[in-house]
Every structure is written in C-alpha cells, then in structure tokens.
C-alpha cells in the first residue's frame, strides 16, 4: 500500500470491503490517521472475516467509550464554568458527539475544545484553575506567546482526570491573515439540551476548513476532511438554504479560499455531494465562472489542490509518513500562515536558542 487511497475508497464506499486483500495495512493506515473508529462504524453490519470483525468491533467499542468520556469532560467543564453565566461553545469532536452528528460516530476525541468570548477569558481561566485544571507548559516565553498572539489559552490539563482542555476565543491565531468575525460566530451559536452550545452548521464547516487549510501543517488532515464530508452531507440534506448560507458565512469570515478548498477536496476524495452553483468559491473565480460551462468546472481541483491531496494521502501500508519534502513544505507553510515574516524570524530565533527538552 503506497498511499492512503485504499482507506479513502473504503470510507467512501464500504461495499468494497469484500475486495480488501490486505486488512493489516488498511488498519495500520486508519490508526495512523485516527480514522480506525470511523472506519469501523462505516463498515458495521457487513459480512467480514471473523478476525477483521473482532478488530472492528473493538474499535467501535473504543469509540463509544471515548465518546462517553469526552461528553463527561464537557460536563465537568460545564459545571466548573456554569457560575460565570457565559456561553460555552463546544468545538470539533466533542461538539459533533454532543450534537449527535454523524461526524461524531466512532471519531476519536482527544482534548476538549471550547470557545468563549474573549472578554470572558480571565474569569474562565480562574474558574478552571480553581476546579482542578493545571498548566501543561511552564515556559514563560510560550505562555506569553499564547496569550499575546494565539487564538487559545495555553493548554490546561486536569490533575485527576488527566484530560486536556483548549480554551479558544477565536478560530485562527490573531496573527493569521484572515480575520474571522468571532462576535457573529458566537452570536449564531446553537443551544444543546444541557446548557452548552455548538457553532451554527455553516460556522462548524468554516471552523473545520479553517483548522485544516488556514492553520497547522495538515497533520490528521484526512480525518478532518472526513469530518467535513460527514457534516456537509448531514447539513445540506433537506436544507436548500444551507449552501448559500455556507457561502455567505465563509465570505463574512474571510475564509472563502479555505472553505472552497475543503469542499472541492471532500468531493474528490469522499464523493461529497455538492451544489456547485451555490458552493463557496473564491471571488476571483466567481467572476470568471459565470457561464454554465464554467460553473460546471468549479468542482475541478485547482492546481494547488493537487499538492494538498498528495499531502493528505501521504501514508504507506505500515502507517509510516511518506513524502517528507511535501510534509516539510506544509510545516513551513503552517508557520508562514501564522505570522508575518519578521515576527516569524523572531519566534524561530527564540525557539532555536532554547535548550531542547
């Protein structure tokens, strides 16, 4: 297995499970991409060889135990923060699980990610520290860096439950070029039964796309794109207003390029159904693509998309990372996206002079 394509094919079309020759490699790739639980849920109910079925059943049970623990962690945070009376918005995996979305099925959930309004940050921080969370990093440069430039507090870990919480006040670092409208995002939140919130459906997609394509080095990208595929399917089904709303939100947050790329790549890799006339697309492309033929061409991958695709699939049948140069390129890009050049130079200089731990 030279890349992750067999995994992508099977996620897209579970009926192909009968033709799988090398389950061991497939499982190694799925585990390396944090997609083992999602794959197991996707293949549930199929006739498979007994050892494969036993392995997938364990992955499903593991996903379920992880879901319960993630929701419990959200409840712990809710209890700690309830007296403040500020809205707590769940993000990513915990949000999908709490909202009962398809994207949450079997999904591995690591840290608890929450979003609060920036002015509430000092109170939230104090309340969490009082309820047993502690700082993970003890480094003053890192701490200052987080507080001044990042979209989240430095990570906190709970001293008894050993689980991390990331408290966000924005979806991208403050130094990144796109400036999402956080007030609008928070205002549009959707209430859950227990008093917690999630983002609105279009903002959930915008956040997932921003996280994948406008921040970070694409590690775990195949899983994040799978989230996007599941979310788009579920939100767009039976809601004709969804695509225009997504378009409007992506534009408002300055994230049309990232959302457009997410939609194109999800369609190409996971066959996400897309309404191409109304799907988010960069303004420059809209002006060119006004004739029906050109609208039809919107789904085609842009040249740069091919590079992203190679990076997303760069995993061999032993679970090893492949394509070191492309990976390095995306790693460098992640820093480039995060800060202006001078600031990046200063940041790397400080980091390089610090003793490695």
């Amino acid at each position, binding site marked *: 297995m030279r890349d992750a394509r067999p995994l992508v094919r099977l996620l897209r079309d579970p009926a192909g499970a009968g033709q799988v020759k090398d389950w061991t490699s497939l499982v190694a790739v799925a*585990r390396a991409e944090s997609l083992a639980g999602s794959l197991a849920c996707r293949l549930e109910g199929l006739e498979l060889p007994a050892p*494969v079925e036993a392995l997938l059943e364990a992955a499903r049970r593991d996903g379920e*135990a992880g879901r319960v623990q993630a929701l419990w962690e959200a409840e712990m945070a809710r209890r700690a923060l309830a007296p403040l009376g500020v809205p707590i918005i769940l993000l990513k995996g915990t949000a999908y699980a709490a909202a009962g979305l398809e994207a949450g099925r079997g999904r591995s959930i690591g840290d608890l990610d929450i979003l609060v309004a920036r002015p509430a940050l000092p109170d939230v921080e104090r309340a969490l520290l009082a309820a047993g969370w502690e700082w993970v990093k003890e480094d003053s440069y890192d701490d200052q860096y987080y507080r001044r430039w990042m979209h989240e507090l430095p990570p906190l870990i709970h001293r008894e439950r050993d689980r991390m919480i990331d408290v966000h006040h924005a979806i991208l670092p403050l130094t990144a070029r796109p400036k999402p409208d956080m007030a609008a995002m928070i205002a549009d939140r959707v209430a859950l039964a227990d008093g917690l919130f999630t983002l609105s459906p279009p903002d959930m997609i915008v956040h997932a796309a921003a996280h994948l394509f406008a921040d970070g080095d694409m590690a775990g990208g195949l899983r994040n794109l799978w989230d996007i595929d599941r979310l788009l399917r579920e939100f767009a089904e039976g809601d004709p207003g969804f695509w225009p709303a997504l378009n409007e939100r992506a534009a408002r947050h300055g994230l049309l390029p990232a959302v457009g790329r997410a939609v194109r790549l999800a369609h190409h890799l996971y066959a996400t159904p897309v309404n191409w006339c109304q799907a988010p697309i960069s303004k420059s492309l809209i002006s060119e693509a006004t004739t029906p033929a050109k609208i039809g061409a919107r789904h085609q991958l842009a040249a740069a998309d091919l590079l992203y695709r190679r990076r997303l699939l760069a995993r061999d049948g032993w679970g090893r990372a492949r394509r070191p140069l492309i990976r390095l390129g995306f790693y460098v890009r992640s820093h480039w996206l995060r800060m202006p050049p001078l600031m990046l130079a200063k940041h790397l200089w400080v980091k390089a002079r610090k003793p490695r731990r």
Partner: protein
Amino acid sequence: MNHVFRLQVGPVSFRIGSQWRRPVAQLRRLYEGYPEPEGVCDFTVRLEAERVWRRWLRPSVAIRGDYVLPDAAPLPLAQGLLAAEMGMNLQMALGQKRFLLLHAASVERDGRALLMTGHSGAGKSTLGALLGERGWRFMGDEFALLDLADGRLHPFPRAVSLKNESLGLFDGVDPARLGPVLTGTPKGRIRHLRPNGEAVARMGEPATPVLILFPRFGRDLEPTVREVGAAEAFMRLTQASTNYVALGESGFDALTRFVGALPCRAIDYADTAQAQALIDELWAKA
C-alpha cells in the same frame, strides 16, 4: 519494510517489520512452532532507524507501530529482539481494547486458572515460568487477558523475559528454547525463554480464573499468607491494568465481577520453594 514476521500469540496477532535482518531472524528462532496469523493482524510493530543514517551508522532501533510513546528511547541494534518485544507490549498496553489487560502472570490446571500480579520484582514472572515447567500450563507472564463478556482468562504465552538472577533458575531447560543473552539493557541482563510445547499448542484455550495471588519476594521475608479484600484487590488490579481507564464502564464491570467472585491472597516468600509450597496449599483450597 525489508523484513517481516507475523506472529499469533493466543487471541492476538502481530505484524512486525524491521529495517534490519537480525531482529526478525531472532524472532523467528525464538517463536519457532508458533502459528502464523490468519487474515488481519491486530497490531503492527515497526523497528526502524531513529534517523536515516542510524540505519548503518551505530544502528539504533526506534520502537514504532500503530501506537507509539512519544519519548520512548531507541535501543542499540544488538538489543533488537528486546525492541521487538517492547514494541509488542506497547501495542498491547496502548491499543488492546478487546480484553481487560492485567499486568500479571497466569497458569492453568484442569481448565482453572491462577493469576499472579504484583510490582516489578515481586517475582510473578519467574513464578509463572517455573510453574509452567512443573506440571501447570503456562498462559503468560506479562499480560493476562480478561474477557470482558464472560470473565474467562485468555492465554498470551509470549516468550518469558528472564532477568538477571532468575536466569540461573532455568539452567535445565532445552537450550533451543532460549534466545540470545542481551546485556546492558535498560532492565539489566535479559534472556528470553520460549514457553514449552503444551503452552504453545493450547494457546487458543481460555480458562476460568479461580484464584488471585499478590506475591511479594524478599530475601528476609517470612513465608506468610494474608487475605486481601475485594476492594483492595480491585484497587491493586486497576493499577496493574494498562487499559482499565480507557475501557470505561465495560472495564469496571469486568473487574468488579472478577474480584467479587474470586478469593484473593497476598503471599510473602524468600525463595521459590517456599512460594511453591504456599501456592500448592492455597490451590488445594481454591
């Protein structure tokens, strides 16, 4: 990967890939007579150079696979066999979710199993291996696999890693069952021992647990037996389990049933003859 070995141990199967020939050749020899897995392997272990040039230059083996510890130290190539064993343990400890995993030795007689657990150095591994040579069926010395549904123990008869002084206790065994002597490892001098033919032939047969022992070894200890309550046994076994927390409710259910149904005893001993006498006595009553 250039060199591949597939191994079935009880209900668990491994695919081990290595950039070097030697660790795989040593594994093949150590696990001679073990069945080859059918179909999918549960876990992949990779033995690969920590940095590209370390494949040839002062070769050092990084332990990787489906599940990894970020700060695991690499081992010199001479200890490649140990790296493979540690790699398999790591996959079990971090990735095994089909069973409740107890860091314990287990042996069987008449379909009934004895489980021994304790801190490193308590002697569970040595005792398990010794009993396995003296009329018991050896089920495993590293992990005992507790079935989450029916509460039975599944065998996991990997090679026993004999450490330092305990090497001398097995002088009489067939030398073909012994691996190379590994010196200067993080755990001192180590030599692996392949479980005997019966343990390998019957690795597919689970057994019903009937007795839990917490042995403690010390040269100046008086041989004693102490009853251990279910609550204490529960706490000690949660500490001896690598996946109790990850399993959530099903792990809690399995473990409470386990300690609720079985007698638990702590035993102190100063030599293996004393330990065996205590075990025989308790086993007769179990």
